[in-house]
């Protein structure tokens, strides 16, 4: 059957809808760029696993012992491969950092978004963001030269108070140290918290400022003042963005290396007292990778076992963040 004649009008429509070669090229280029980042991620995961699997296959190691052993001494003559001391070190410094960054960052965000006038905000915000531009090495030294010495009297006072309570409640218990070591997880965590304050404040402020004015007017219209409107209406409306900023702060704190490597001491320490020294997963990795361990040795592979633990921790936080964002997304 012969094709019916195509009218000129239809022809021009066909020409316009057909993807021209140049557009195909652009589309392909964009696809490559998108795939590239996926490949990088996949490559990193592959390297992590390919080095970690032989580690767990080694006769001296088992996944069970990895998770339950209370000591991490792969470089000593008596080797223990329990990751928990490093995980606990990571969790302590992260928790302390968040205890500093979340309240301070949120309060700053509320103030910037709901109270500060435009001029002040334009000055304060970039200055705050400078905090995260300071090299982390500098923060590490700030922790041991300023924060740890400054914490000393506070800690001594606190520890003595705890000990006196302990003596009356549980007379048999051994008292905790009243001296704060120079390298401790507490000061490393506090300084790390200061570093991530702008992550929380900046993102939370963006989230709160994108809450429509109509919602604020609704609250003011009921007779609410600024603080009530900020805390009871704007904050919950922006919760999804604020939660995202917290998750970012957690990921940043879990992955932070330099501050904890410098200021927390590098002895893996399974402890309930954050005022002691400790090592985090990242600090261990940097410590070992700077030594001269032979490639392929068991000690070398511990880096990847630690790395994979870190990978799963951050993955868990990111999934939690995605869930939180979905859970609290508001359709104004």
């Amino acid at each position, binding site marked *: 059957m012969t094709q019916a004649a195509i009218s000129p009008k239809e022809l021009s429509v066909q020409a316009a809808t057909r993807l021209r070669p140049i557009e195909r090229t652009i589309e392909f280029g964009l696809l490559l760029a998108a795939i590239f980042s996926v490949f990088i991620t996949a490559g990193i995961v592959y390297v992590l696993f390919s080095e970690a699997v032989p580690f767990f296959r080694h006769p001296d190691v088992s996944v069970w012992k990895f998770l339950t052993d209370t000591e991490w001494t792969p470089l000593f003559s008596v080797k223990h491969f329990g990751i928990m001391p490093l995980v606990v070190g990571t969790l302590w410094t992260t928790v302390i950092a968040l205890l500093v960054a979340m309240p301070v960052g949120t309060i700053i965000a509320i103030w910037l978004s709901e109270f500060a006038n435009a001029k002040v905000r334009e000055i304060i915000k970039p200055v705050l963001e400078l905090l995260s531009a300071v090299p982390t090495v500098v923060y590490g030294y700030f922790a041991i030269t300023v924060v740890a010495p400054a914490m000393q009297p506070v800690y001594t006072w606190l520890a003595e108070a705890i000990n006196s309570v302990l003596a009356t409640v549980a007379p048999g218990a051994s008292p905790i140290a009243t001296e704060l070591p120079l390298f401790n997880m507490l000061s490393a965590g506090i300084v790390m918290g200061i570093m991530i304050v702008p992550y929380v404040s900046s993102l939370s402020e963006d989230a709160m400022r994108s809450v429509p004015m109509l*919602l604020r007017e*609704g609250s003011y219209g*009921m007779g609410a003042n600024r603080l009530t409107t900020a805390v009871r209406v704007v904050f919950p*409306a922006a919760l999804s963005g604020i939660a995202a900023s917290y998750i970012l702060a957690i990921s940043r704190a879990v992955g932070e290396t330099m501050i904890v490597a410098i200021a927390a001491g590098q002895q893996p320490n399974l402890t309930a007292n954050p005022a002691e020294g400790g090592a985090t997963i990242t600090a261990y990795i940097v410590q070992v990778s700077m030594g001269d361990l032979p490639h392929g040795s068991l000690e070398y592979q511990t880096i990847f076992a630690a790395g994979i633990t870190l990978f799963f921790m951050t993955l868990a936080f990111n999934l939690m963040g995605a869930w939180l964002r979905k859970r609290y997304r*508001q359709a104004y």
Partner: protein
Amino acid sequence: MPDTQIDTRPLKAEVKNFSFFYGSFQAVKNVSAPFREKAVTAIIGPSGCGKTTLLRCFNRMHDLYPGNRYAGEMILHSRSPDGSVRPLNIVHPSTSPIEMRMRISMVFQKPNPFPKSIFENVAYGLRLRGVGSRSELSGRVETALRGAALWDEVKDRLPQNAYGLSGGQQQRLCIARALAVEPEMVLFDEPTSALDPIATSKIEELIDDLRERVTILIVTHNMQQAARVSDYTAFMYLGELVEYDRTAKVFQNPGKPLTEQYISGRFG
């Protein structure tokens, strides 16, 4: 609906030689008008005529933004619990905007429920006024939701988020929120402009029911709506009050040619 006695009702509010400025731009020009108690007064006029601006003066909404200025008097004849009436100049610098917002509620152009449960949305104003007891809150929330003709639809899901409601339900929730605090006046700023016809007619019925309980001021783009729900109509044009009269009079026998032209759809 028409009530011949309505002209003898006491005044709830009045504006006298009232002007409003956005910076140097005068959006409301020397307007004077009475607003009778428990009557519905509609403000109509083309876009940009200053009707919403005038409405937002009543609860001092303009104070939220810098550079705005009021001139002249806007009086609320405020009734105390003992029954005595006290005139209060809404826009006087010494009058607290928060006090005015406590006395005069507002319903906005688009439904704006808070990101809270249905219950907490209605309880919001009550909590601000210090009502804390759970039983009193529940009672007053229920009364307000019944008053806004929403109770039957939401009574089984009070703890659920208000964003789960439809647009029309959300707007009735906002009306319930405004009514819960037993305001002296309720301001409606084009309350149905974001709603479909069915939701619109529900809101209009609601306004008709409310007229017995509270003084209502409604800004609307929809002239049929003004004709249906209001007792009085004010027609504004370019910031000036062109005509103010009984709604029936304004629509059937307008006093000014401009009003007649607007109502018959020749501009606007």
